[in-house]
């Protein structure tokens, strides 16, 4: 049995972490924005908002229905256009983001829907603007759901990076597939799996901790 090349392992770990956290960061803002758009457009009676709501909703449903591995393939031309290559961790970002944002936007919308209607009514009665209602009422009140939502998304995302890795994005998934599986080095696969598990555990524990901390209900 050949010795494990730890330098390779840590290089792959770094790539996985890079993909995970870059995507989480971008998904957080895009998903929150899209979630708010969904929430607000569903509350309005005007036709424009109904159309916006219907379109956003359908796009989200379609994107969520496509299996991730196929989504990557479908997005190859788009990726090539904006990143310039389809190989490497950065090239994986567009597909990862497109895969995660709709999922997170839904979770955000569910969280916003659970905010007590009475609290929003009270804020209106005190003369709050829509912007103030978003920043001072909706987001703070839905914060536990927003945090636990990004935690769930992030955990799912770790799995996606491994999948993306298998088709050229690099990272632990790439290593496990190319080195571990293709060359029959089970050791590599096991260590890569262990690394992924540790990442997932840390994300979950941190997410749970913060959620609990911000939830005063």
């Amino acid at each position: 049995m050949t010795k494990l090349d730890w330098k390779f392992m840590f290089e792959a770990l770094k790539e996985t972490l890079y993909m995970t956290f870059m995507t989480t960061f971008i998904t957080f803002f895009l998903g929150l924005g899209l979630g708010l758009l969904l929430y607000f457009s569903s509350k309005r009676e005007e036709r424009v908002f109904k159309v916006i709501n219907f379109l956003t909703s359908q796009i989200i449903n379609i994107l969520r229905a496509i299996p991730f591995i196929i989504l990557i393939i479908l997005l190859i031309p788009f990726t090539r256009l904006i990143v310039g290559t389809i190989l490497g961790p950065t090239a994986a970002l567009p597909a990862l983001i497109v895969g995660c944002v709709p999922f997170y936007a839904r979770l955000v919308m569910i969280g916003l829907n659970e905010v007590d209607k009475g609290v929003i009514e009270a804020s209106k009665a005190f003369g709050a603007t829509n912007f103030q209602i978003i920043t001072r009422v909706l987001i703070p009140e839905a914060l536990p759901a927003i945090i636990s939502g990004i935690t769930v998304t992030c955990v799912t995302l770790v799995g996606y990076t491994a999948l993306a890795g298998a088709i050229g994005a690099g990272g632990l998934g790439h290593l496990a597939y190319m080195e571990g599986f293709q060359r029959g080095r089970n050791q590599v696969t096991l260590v890569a799996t262990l690394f992924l598990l540790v990442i997932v555990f840390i994300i979950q524990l941190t997410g749970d901790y913060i959620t609990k901390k911000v939830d005063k209900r």
Partner: protein
Amino acid sequence: MIRLENVVKHYRTTEAVNGVTLTINKGEIYGIIGYSGAGKSTLIRMINLLEKPTSGKLYVNEIDLLGLSPKELRLQRRKIGMIFQHFNLLSNKTVFDNVAFPLKIAKVKKDIIHNRVTELLNLVGVSSKANHYPSELSGGEKQRVGIARALANNPEVLLCDEVTSALDPETTKQILNLLKTINEKFGITIVLISHEMAVVKEICHRVAVMEKGKIIEEGLVISLFTSPQTKTAQNFVKQITDLNGDVLEDEKLKVKYPEGILVKLQYINDNVEKPLISSLVKMFDIDVNILQGKIIPTSNGSYGLLYVQLTGNDLSQAIKHLEKQGIEVKRID
């Protein structure tokens, strides 16, 4: 202070408020009583335009709210505080921050906010809980915080939406007393909706009875007791005048006490404080047997209800004497 002119609110399939006209004076506590579905909740929400009337006119402090731009409306709303049945506090903010909320929205300076909030928490008696979260408070404390929050911007009007319906009777009394104090101390006009006569008679000066989106009766609280015009009003009054326990109906009373005559006496204000029965016995050659009764204090005076059996010789003179004193006498035959 508040004037509604033929205000109507239609939803797609239902008519919640169906042409309401009313005037609420400055500094008064005005009650709107009605069963659920009567439209009172919609009505009170139209006063600060949380619900937009389908038609009609609405003036608060002589300002036509329906003619305002969204921005002007937000400024006017700061002068109209509101408290709610389910308190509607921000669950992820402390008591202090909840009370500070309307001030932050109005972009008041931080040190002024601090002083004002401290003052308000003292006023409502929850200053020891300033750093607690709403989930750590009792219902009564939550409503006190709600009141403090509603008063933060020094409003001229306070809207109360079933504010005691989620509270036990003892806490209800405390909250009503607090509202009364606020009304007397700051001269704030209070509009209160409720389905409980007990709440209305405790603090309201005037009351409107609402049914099917309309106001069917309006007047002083005491007059609602002495002369309710509609069946609904009578039922609300009965919530209070019903004598608890083993009460006998008029017919059964007559069977049980066949001698002499039975009368039902209704009286208000001064008469409650007079030694009515003993003077009657001294003045006439009769005996008075009190069968059942109740005296109910309201904010416009007390209302008394007595069932008595009169026996003896001067029955008709005695009754005339009672009537002369302004007591409503009803013979039960």
